[in-house]
């Protein structure tokens, strides 16, 4: 069925009820990863490499094992060796050798903080002491941190078996360039020859951490027959099960994975770090083991996203029509291949209708923690460069920056440079909403500036399961296989309640463990409300069919003489007979007599996620004395398809924008000359705090996605794409300075002001 109807015809979807898991979260009852305990539980801790790049010569744990209270020690020697190939376990391709070696270093430590051993002991203090007693001998190797230094000939090579893919002929020597990818459309040289105006720039972004407030945590238990349980804070309980089983060489059926409440992820909890270690320690010690990362561990050994160097060249006619674009992207992958270079190459220019394009991307390893997904992985980096360059172009042409985007913006039927033709997109509606928003016309004071920037993300679908059960009293349980990271239980319950026609508080949603619901791909890619929502909607529809069938039995009339309306079965017309309507509760009461329990589980692979577009407007005031940039006003406009719970959709937009503002102004990884991270804590890695930000106005444009029953598009990722360029463009508007390097921190801005003064 299709519920893409005016809001006035919807009873629950599109309203703002209190979320069903809310009370537990404001009273402290909600149970997150580190809140879990099991009887007899002991504590696990990780020993980490102090070196950025070092061969592990030997590990001697004898002193640690002799310490009273120490129950187990594990090193790479305890894990199976895994072949260097991409394998499938239901979550898409993954190089499990790299995953295994990232969880526990084998032969070499590849970054400061890389795990080299783990212990389990009866108290945290004893575990800490045991970590110090493990004697690891290293042969320190030359290291490389910077992406272009890592690409240079003669750079220290991290992996002797890494030969760049995507180049012909295959390189004779290994390097740190894992792969080269490219996309071309038209003839870029001919395009630039036609251009009246050309802008060029070299932009850099720094790695930034997802910086979820909850550090990674888990509790593992293994019984003597090999059956195991893992409770963890994760974006995917099925991912934890599959990845842990693969890294350990265990059977999936022996592992039951329970999703705890998750304290933020933003992509950073889409892989495992501690879980395989905790399981192995639990097996070796025979005791349940809890492991928690410290905040320092989180910064040094999990996440972040890539830093990058991006070169951009854009050519246009005098009227603003873009005729050619060229982009070269060098993305840091961290210690193992796998930066989001593919989306990086596609996303930045996906917003525009361009005749001639060439994009080349490189995936580059260096002695940093392996990158993890971070909200629209790859897109914010490329869009910082492209949207900054477009602002330069608008300045050069003396065109309104919004008009430049309106003129060149993608619409239905626009063929992107990566080949896909856009369909059912709302970019122009977003630009229209930006133009008509009062913010865009509001006057500015001297010293203030305004910038705009746009962003795109594909959004994804994928495998999802959802179940709807009618309980004996007519209340309804909804089970999904996706951890609820930002309110998805509320949206699942709302879609089910809308289909069933019952009040929201009659429906209780939960997130099931891996044995309680069918396989579901993890919570990520802005897919849950779209894909899992589709599964839940279909399950609810099947339940309505069953309720009608049961009512038909109770009334002893044909099922097609029953209709479902306002949460009740009604006789369809006069011929069906004169019966009082039956509520869900009345039908549930007779479920046993009419065929047994009423419920349905739907598993599907959702296709056709609708792409999302956003446009952000940012006003700043720049203090040239201190280099401080103050955000005065911020408006984020986005096509959301259909907002199921508008307050949580706004929350996604506001939160994504705030993260992007942090990326723009403060956040970065700072290394010393030995390759050690100097700012592994919230004091020195400064995420935005309440006093840094104004209210962030979220404007929802609703262009329904026809491939979802309610018209949903993913919303969580688009909002982090535009902010870096929106801020940089506002700074340029305020100061005339083009800030090409993130973050636009006070020292950098001061240096730019000084350089300009010197240049006179």
């Amino acid at each position, binding site marked *: 069925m299709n519920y893409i109807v005016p809001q006035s015809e919807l009873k629950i979807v599109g309203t703002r009820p209190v979320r069903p898991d809310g009370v537990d979260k404001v009273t402290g009852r909600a149970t997150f990863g580190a809140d879990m305990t099991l009887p007899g539980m002991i504590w696990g801790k990780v020993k980490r490499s102090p070196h950025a790049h070092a061969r592990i010569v030997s590990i001697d744990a004898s002193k640690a094992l002799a310490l009273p209270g120490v129950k187990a020690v594990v090193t790479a020697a305890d894990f199976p060796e895994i072949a260097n190939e991409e394998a499938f376990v239901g979550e898409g391709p993954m190089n499990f050798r790299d995953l295994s070696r990232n969880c526990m270093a084998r032969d070499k430590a590849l970054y400061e903080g890389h795990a080299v051993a783990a212990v389990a002991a009866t108290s945290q203090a004893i575990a800490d002491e045991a970590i110090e007693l493990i004697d690891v001998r290293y042969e320190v190797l030359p290291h490389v941190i910077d992406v272009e230094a890592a690409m240079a000939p003669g750079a220290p090579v991290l992996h002797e078996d890494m030969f760049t893919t995507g180049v012909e002929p295959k390189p004779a020597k290994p390097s740190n360039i894992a792969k080269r990818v490219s996309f071309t459309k038209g003839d870029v040289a001919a395009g630039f020859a036609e251009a009246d105006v050309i802008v060029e720039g070299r932009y850099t972004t720094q790695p930034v951490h997802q910086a979820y407030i909850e550090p990674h945590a888990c509790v593992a238990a293994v019984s003597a027959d090999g059956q195991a349980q893992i409770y963890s804070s994760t974006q995917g309980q099925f991912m934890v099960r599959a990845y842990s089983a693969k890294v350990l060489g265990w059977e999936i059926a022996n592992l039951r994975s329970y999703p705890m409440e998750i304290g933020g992820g933003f992509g950073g909890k889409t892989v495992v770090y501690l879980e395989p270690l905790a399981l192995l320690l639990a097996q070796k010690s025979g005791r349940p083991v809890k492991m928690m990362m410290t905040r320092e561990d989180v910064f040094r050994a999990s996440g972040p996203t890539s830093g990058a160097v991006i070169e951009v060249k854009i050519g246009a006619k005098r009227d603003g029509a873009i005729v050619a674009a060229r982009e070269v992207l060098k993305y840091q992958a961290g210690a193992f291949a796998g930066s989001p270079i593919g989306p990086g190459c596609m996303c930045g220019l996906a917003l525009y209708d361009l005749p001639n394009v060439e994009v080349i991307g490189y995936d580059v390893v260096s002695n940093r923690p392996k990158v993890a997904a971070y909200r629209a992985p790859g897109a914010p980096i490329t869009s910082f460069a492209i949207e900054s360059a477009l602002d330069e172009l608008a300045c050069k042409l003396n065109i309104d920056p919004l008009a430049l985007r309106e003129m060149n913006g993608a619409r239905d039927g626009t063929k992107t440079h990566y080949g896909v033709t856009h369909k059912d997109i709302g970019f122009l509606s977003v630009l229209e909403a930006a133009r008509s928003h009062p913010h865009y016309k509001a006057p500015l004071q001297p010293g203030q500036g305004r910038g705009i920037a746009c962003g795109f993300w594909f959004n994804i679908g994928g495998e999802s399961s959802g179940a709807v059960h009618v309980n004996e009293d007519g209340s309804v349980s909804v089970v999904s296989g996706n951890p609820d990271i930002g309110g998805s239980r509320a949206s699942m319950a709302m879609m089910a309640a809308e289909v069933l026609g019952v009040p929201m508080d009659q429906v209780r949603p939960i997130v099931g463990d891996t044995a309680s619901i069918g396989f579901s791909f993890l919570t990520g890619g802005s897919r849950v409300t779209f894909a899992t929502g589709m599964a839940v909607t279909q399950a609810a529809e099947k339940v309505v069919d069953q309720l009608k069938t049961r009512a038909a039995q109770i009334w002893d009339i044909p099922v097609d003489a029953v209709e479902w309306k306002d949460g009740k079965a009604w006789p369809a017309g006069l011929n069906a007979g004169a019966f009082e309507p039956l509520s869900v509760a009345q039908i549930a009461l007779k479920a046993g007599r009419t065929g047994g329990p009423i419920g349905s589980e739907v598993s599907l692979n959702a296709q056709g996620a609708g792409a999302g577009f956003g446009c952000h407007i940012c006003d700043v005031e720049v203090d040239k004395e201190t280099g401080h940039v103050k955000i005065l006003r911020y408006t984020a406009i986005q096509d959301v398809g259909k907002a199921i719970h508008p307050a949580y959709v706004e929350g996604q937009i506001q939160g994504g924008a705030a*993260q992007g503002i942090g990326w723009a102004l403060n956040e970065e990884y700072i290394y010393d000359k030995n390759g050690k991270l100097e700012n592994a*804590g919230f004091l020195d890695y400064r995420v935005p705090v309440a006093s840094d930000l104004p209210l962030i106005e979220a404007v929802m444009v609703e262009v329904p996605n026809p491939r979802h029953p309610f018209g949903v598009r993913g919303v969580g990722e688009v909002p982090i794409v535009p902010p870096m360029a929106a801020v940089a463009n506002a700074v340029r508007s305020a100061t005339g300075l083009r800030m090409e390097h993130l973050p636009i921190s006070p020292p950098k801005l001061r240096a730019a002001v000084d350089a300009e003064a010197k240049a006179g």
Partner: protein
Amino acid sequence: MSKHHVTTTINGEAVEFLCETQETLLDVLRNTLNLTGSKEGCASGDCGACTVIMDGKMVCSCLVLGVEAEGSSVTTVEGIADGETLHPVQRKFLEHAALQCGFCTPGFIVATKALLDANPNPTEEEARYWLAGNLCRCTGYDKIIRAVMDAAAEMRGEARAA
């Protein structure tokens, strides 16, 4: 090493516990007393997820030693509601959707109560600076600030502000 015996009051109840010298009040709350509502986000006083009220003052419980709780009165997130009746701050956080993952929420609830105890009529700027020691990575603070201002207005007996 023998443990210290500590007598204190937590959420209005007399409590006794044993702790090591180096254990923080947060460790004691979470691991000894099973009051896991206070969260550990950094253990260095930078994130505010472990915020409690100690003798009327807002503190990060990760920066207080367990032994320092001797003779004091501590309020944690578990003690904010009155039985089944939510505190207006808790209710306003729910109504304004001022939480997403909910991990920082206990710290914000406690810090907001401390703010409104000290200053029943804060400006938006005062609220933002008071809460600057509490990190939230999900919301961008917009809905949190609206919830705080609305809770303040309600507690002053004024009509809904936002």
